[in-house]
């Protein structure tokens, strides 16, 4: 079917009143969930699964999808306002988004996040419609060696994330890599460093960890100051991004969309990876990288676009092959099966209205989200006006419940508190949390791919150079390392570091 034909078919399904209603419900709940720290789309979608029994499969998927990408819209809100990532994919938005808020630019930050998400989400869906089969073929080519090389590339990009001391950033990456191994080892089935705590068998929870490292640490930090000094002391400026903001962000949004989409297709990739890579890319190509971490709008526009593009991208393997790239897609799969539909290569042929209807509903949903989120910006900015002494206990309460609600477990809340303390100390002693978290996320994928590759190749390391994708990633990583070491680049970094120290 041609593009317009399928779009029209899809829209006719998506605009049925039933579907419109559930789409709205979904994106509304999704935004709410995204704003609330901790509670994520996974928990909510699973709670709402029974609701889908009484409705058709198409409607069910439309609603559940709405929750999913809606959450990515809302997730940036708390990251920007109070440095608490509402979603793991919004962690990186904390870095510059929160700084922007402290400079009185919360409105533009929220605005560009919403717009970026909309543009990226919509473009992502268009690409999904047009290029699904060839993209899936590329995604499938990623086997264990390719994943490993990709992870190496990802970790190399980390060097560019470092604000101050590269050595300390690398050290944090090392610690993050190590902690990523906590849990059940997939390859041997042995439990590592779990100290007999069953909740650790699946690894330390990333959501509570991120909430602790960024959000709780920030609260502790703020508590030290006397009540008189307001945390957000700058006056609130414009509510929407200015023309200047748009000019600065447009390429970030474009790059973020591309990066996010590709990383979203890869099983195991997803929003977190997409947002980190987008941030690093923006910093790498920027003319003045020292403004990153200090309120650079590209640092918000890029990652937020990336994670929404990744959400769209993740639908490709699901709809074309029935493969879930992450837990969210697995839930969507489950919902489909509950309705008697088995996703797979035949889905398009057997259920075209489901296929195109869901895709079209995503256009509708993204539009709804933009309309929903923009007016809310004014509301959120007002929230910042509440005196911190009342605000922080509330934030704390939300974090505590949110962390609990991830898995209905107090262990997660304890993890959050622990990393809150760690994050606070890290800030005091000048260690950066971003490389730590990124390495933590990448570590399991990297290790499993490494060992699987070695099993396949019987221990020969040549397998990593055997395929074009794998070789390409490694060469790229190598080039980046050389670039980082080059004298010209070194000077640039030193300039960044000294300027950073000057700015304090």
């Amino acid at each position: 079917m041609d593009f317009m034909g399928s779009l029209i078919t899809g829209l006719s399904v998506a605009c049925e009143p039933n579907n419109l209603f559930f789409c709205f419900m979904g994106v509304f709940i999704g935004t709410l969930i995204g704003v609330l720290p901790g509670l994520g789309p996974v928990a909510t979608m699973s709670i709402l699964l029974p609701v889908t029994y009484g409705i058709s499969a198409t409607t069910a998927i439309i609603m559940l999808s709405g929750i999913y990408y809606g959450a990515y819209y809302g997730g940036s809100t708390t990251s920007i306002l109070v440095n608490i990532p509402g979603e793991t994919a919004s962690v990186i938005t904390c870095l510059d988004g929160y700084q922007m808020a402290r400079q009185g630019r919360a409105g533009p930050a929220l605005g560009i996040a919403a717009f970026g998400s909309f543009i990226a989400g919509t473009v992502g869906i268009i690409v999904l419609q047009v290029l699904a089969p060839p993209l899936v073929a590329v995604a499938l080519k990623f086997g264990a060696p390719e994943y490993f090389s990709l992870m190496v590339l990802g970790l190399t990009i980390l060097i560019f994330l470092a604000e101050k001391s590269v050595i300390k950033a690398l050290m944090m990456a090392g610690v993050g890599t190590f902690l990523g191994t906590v849990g059940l080892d997939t390859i041997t089935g042995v439990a590592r460093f779990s100290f007999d705590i069953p909740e650790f068998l699946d690894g330390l929870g990333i959501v509570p960890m991120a909430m602790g490292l960024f959000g709780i640490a920030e609260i502790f930090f703020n508590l030290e100051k006397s009540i008189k000094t307001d945390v957000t002391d700058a006056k609130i400026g414009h509510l929407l991004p200015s023309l200047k903001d748009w000019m600065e962000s447009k390429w970030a949004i474009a790059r973020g969309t591309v990066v996010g989409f590709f990383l979203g297709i890869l099983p195991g990739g997803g929003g977190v990876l997409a947002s980190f890579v987008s941030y690093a890319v923006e910093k790498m190509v920027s003319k003045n990288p020292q403004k990153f971490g200090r309120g650079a709008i590209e640092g918000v526009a890029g990652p937020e676009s990336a994670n929404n593009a990744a959400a769209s991208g993740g639908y490709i393997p699901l709809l074309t092959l029935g493969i879930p790239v992450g837990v969210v897609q697995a839930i969507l799969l489950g919902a489909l099966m509950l309705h008697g539909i088995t996703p797979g290569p035949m889905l398009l042929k057997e259920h075209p209205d489901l296929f195109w209807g869901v895709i079209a509903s995503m256009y509708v949903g993204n539009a709804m989200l933009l309309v929903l989120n923009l007016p809310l910006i004014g509301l959120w900015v007002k929230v910042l006006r509440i005196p911190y002494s009342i605000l922080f206990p509330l934030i704390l309460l939300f974090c505590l419940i949110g962390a609990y609600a991830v898995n209905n477990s107090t262990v997660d809340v304890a993890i959050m508190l622990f990393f809150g303390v760690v994050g606070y100390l890290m800030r005091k002693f000048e260690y950066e949390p971003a490389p730590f978290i990124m390495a933590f996320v990448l570590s399991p994928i990297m290790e499993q791919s490494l060992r699987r590759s070695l099993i396949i190749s019987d221990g020969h390391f040549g397998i990593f150079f055997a395929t074009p994708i794998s070789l390409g990633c490694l060469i790229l990583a190598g080039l980046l390392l050389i670039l980082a070491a080059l004298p010209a680049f070194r000077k640039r970094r030193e300039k960044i570091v000294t300027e950073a120290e000057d700015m304090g």
Partner: protein
Amino acid sequence: MRTMKVFLAMFTAVGLTLVCLISFPLPVWAQDYPTKPITLYCSYVAGATTDITARALASGVEKLLRVPVMVENKPGGNSTVCASLIASKKPDGYTLAAMAAGVVNQMPLLYKIPYDPFNSFTQIMQYSRWIGGVCVLSESPIKTIQDFITYSKAHPGMTYGSPGMYSQQHLGVFMFGECKGLQIKHIPYKGGAEAITAFLGKHTDFIAGSGSHIPYVRQRAFRMLVIYNATKRDPNFPDIPILSEIGCEDYPADGIMVAGPKGLPDPIRKKLHDVFKKVAEGPEFQKVLEQVNMPYDYKDGTELDKEARVKYEWFKAFYKKVGLLK
């Protein structure tokens, strides 16, 4: 002075906490059971096959017992996280779990678990079990399991993906390989979906399917050659032989069971058993089982209890034989 106040506040908090740490047990009467909502923990993530069956059971049981039955997911550690959670709950019939039966007889041998396998659960009933089959891509020249054996002997080192190390699918194929003297390499993944993705991308030569492969078989993307973890042929695939038919010892399938904490009063257990069985045998649930490609395999909880020790010893001997345990 201010510091004093702060510390006073903290001590009050600690004191309150200590007071509340003394919990009062609430009495339970079977004829009035149930009077409040029941929580059914599921040991797999939402959307997983087991989760779907648990939710279907929950909605059926809800109608019969006339109280809400809520499904909560507590995934991780191959059901052991859920298992240790349920082991710690009060046996009042309001907290149950749908999880792998292997938490009693298999997992304790493989991992260090915080619960006592034989004294932690009241097994109510088993309702299904996991299945699997060796599959090759349909474009492959291999048409039957005999073809496969010949091909494998001519091409040693074929790789296969499975949903996890020591999963019953892995072990089924492993025993097949041992039995026929094949040199095959096992690549463990995390779950059936990951294994299928790698297989679709041709990164493994064949796959130890774990149930999620069935749609692909039906849609002719995969060709199933032999079924393992089974004692009889699959009625949906009557032409496919099972492992024991081709002369190999098979690895027994793990079942999915509904269980409660140890010490569930008998009348409550009986009531739960009858209700769950009724729902499980009903047409709606059977349809769900069909949709997720799982067989209906019923076993009474008391039977499971009796078998537990025996099976445990069997697994112990088996794992020693294949070198998993020393």
